[in-house]
């Protein structure tokens, strides 16, 4: 104890204490965070819709309202369909972790059966797009044609290689790397958040299948060589050349100009 008392005036003591306090608070917050609310067991409920309603009331209704009618912070869910529920909950965007301009992709909280039950409940409120059939979401289409459709309709926001990009005022188009084909299809179908809708009357199911096939090709991640720098285009590449390239040249110039000892 005596040595500890002696060390309390050490210059690093303040930082050690601060770090310990921050760690404690952070861990405590993570435990107290509403995101860890356990989903109630739904096995007892009679139908999917009732089970879904129970999950909805426990996890979603605080923002979306007890009748899914929407509220101050969240839209009405009438007519969004099971596809929207499957996308938002399946990619972990909902339940939303914290308020913000955009819900980020997170590890998902519910298993597929629970998500399907919520989807069934939301679909029972008003007709909306259903979860797409696996025929169109598993790839196996024409990747070249999908690439062409992707470059016209998607690439301006999501980047030519699916790396994502910035929108206005803190919003962004997320990266499409490693996203399940089903979720890509549902995003096109429902237009989550800032994204416009690409209904089947715009891009047919075959078009969507081709886009998914193209993205699966991109996901294989074959790199012809060199440092891709996230594949987000000329700005990081220029930045890299300016900082590292010119830095190296300055070091070389200093070395050249020094006399040997």
């Amino acid at each position, binding site marked *: 104890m005596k040595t500890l008392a002696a060390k309390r005036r050490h210059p690093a003591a303040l930082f050690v204490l601060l770090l310990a306090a921050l760690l404690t608070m952070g861990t405590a917050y993570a435990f107290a965070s509403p995101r860890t609310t356990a989903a109630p067991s739904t096995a007892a409920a009679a139908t999917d819709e009732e089970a879904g309603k129970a999950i909805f009331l426990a996890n979603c209704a605080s923002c979306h309202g007890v009748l899914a009618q929407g509220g101050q912070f969240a839209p009405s869910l009438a007519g969004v369909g099971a596809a929207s529920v499957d996308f938002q909950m399946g990619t972990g965007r909902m339940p939303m972790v914290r308020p913000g301009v955009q819900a980020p992709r997170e590890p998902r909280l519910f298993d597929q059966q629970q998500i399907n039950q919520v989807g069934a409940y939301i679909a029972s409120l008003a007709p909306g797009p259903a979860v797409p059939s696996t025929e169109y979401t598993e790839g196996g289409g024409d990747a070249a044609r999908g690439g*062409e*459709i992707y470059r*016209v*309709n998607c690439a*301006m*926001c999501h980047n030519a290689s699916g790396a994502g*990009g910035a*929108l*206005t005022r803190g*919003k962004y*188009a997320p990266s499409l790397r490693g996203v399940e084909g089903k979720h890509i299809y549902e995003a096109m179908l429902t*237009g989550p*958040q*800032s*994204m*416009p*809708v*690409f*209904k089947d*009357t*715009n891009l047919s199911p075959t*078009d969507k299948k081709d886009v998914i096939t193209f993205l699966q090709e991109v996901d294989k*991640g*074959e*790199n*012809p*060589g*060199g*440092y*891709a720098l996230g594949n987000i285009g000329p700005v990081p590449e220029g930045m890299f050349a300016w900082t590292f390239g010119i830095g190296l040249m300055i070091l070389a110039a200093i*070395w*050249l100009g*020094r*006399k*040997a*000892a």
Partner: protein
Amino acid sequence: MTTHGTPDGAHTPMNDEHGSTAVRLDQGHIQGTGGIPAQFQNPGLPPHVERMSDIDPKAAKRAELQVASMFILSILGSLACLVAYFVIPTHQQIWIPAIENGNLSHLAIGLTLAISTFFIGAGAVHWAKTLMPDQEVVEERHPLHSTPEERQAFARALAEGDAAAQLSRRPLLKMTLAGALGLFAIPPIVQLVGGLGPLPGDDLSTTFWDSKYWTNGKAPRLMRDPEMTPIKASDVTIGSVFHVLPEGIMDSEHPLDEKGKAAVLLMRLHPDQIKSQKERDWGYHGIVAYSKICTHVGCPVGLYEQTTHHLLCPCHQSTFDVTDDCKVIFGPAHRPLPQLKIAVDAEGYLIAEHGFAEAVGPSFWERG
């Protein structure tokens, strides 16, 4: 704490020779005495410092070995590059820390070539710095002009040549030669300017939507890009965005040139959200079509946010408000995006009865 030069004045340069020492701000105006010498002495070069390798033969030997080992590294790099070129399969991918997936063959060739070239240079520099002479030497510049005799001889030769050719005596020859040489320069200049291509004419002011491009007198339908299928008004749901080209554009003489001007973005808003009466009138039940070519420098303005109805240009972040006739709300663009007036034909497909009312895309000379 009091030191010299503080305002409380233990020691101030007040009584020193002004003009040769610094003057403090609180001393007011002080007439200098011209304490700076008329000419500074050339300080000359600092004394030469011998290097270790100049004094110690062992150090010189060490430097020699260092240079030689750099050259040997370069040789090894070249050989390794040749081996990598022939041995490593061209499509093999490997995982590299910080780079992630990469092509092994390209990486190996690049690295070995870098070693090969870098160590030639590094060895040469190290050689020059440690072993080659480093005595400081001053070389004076010598005058560039010729001697007076040579210059006079040249002037004489010129005058003699002029007299012999009778150039000054026969002005007719002088005039015609000057004319011939002057005119000779014009044909190449004309070809050069002509080779810059035909004048643009009204190319910048017209698009493929204009009636002069209509086939058999029918207003063109709006077609999906790239599928080139017509769009029914009922296909365009609220929140949708369609990338649109005019019917028949792929059959035009230069489809890419035409696409660069005629690309259109089709969106549907709730009619109540539209603030501009002209936008409502030129649209169809909330379906509106706007040029996709940014009025700043002509990038495709494709980033439509369906929640805010902002159209964002990815190049310079110009932002257009689709609810208010695509007025600029942010960024360097100066003009709103031109709207395409749309209607519906007898079969329910969207058509454009007129071209754009103004030139699309960035400013140009005649447009202002």
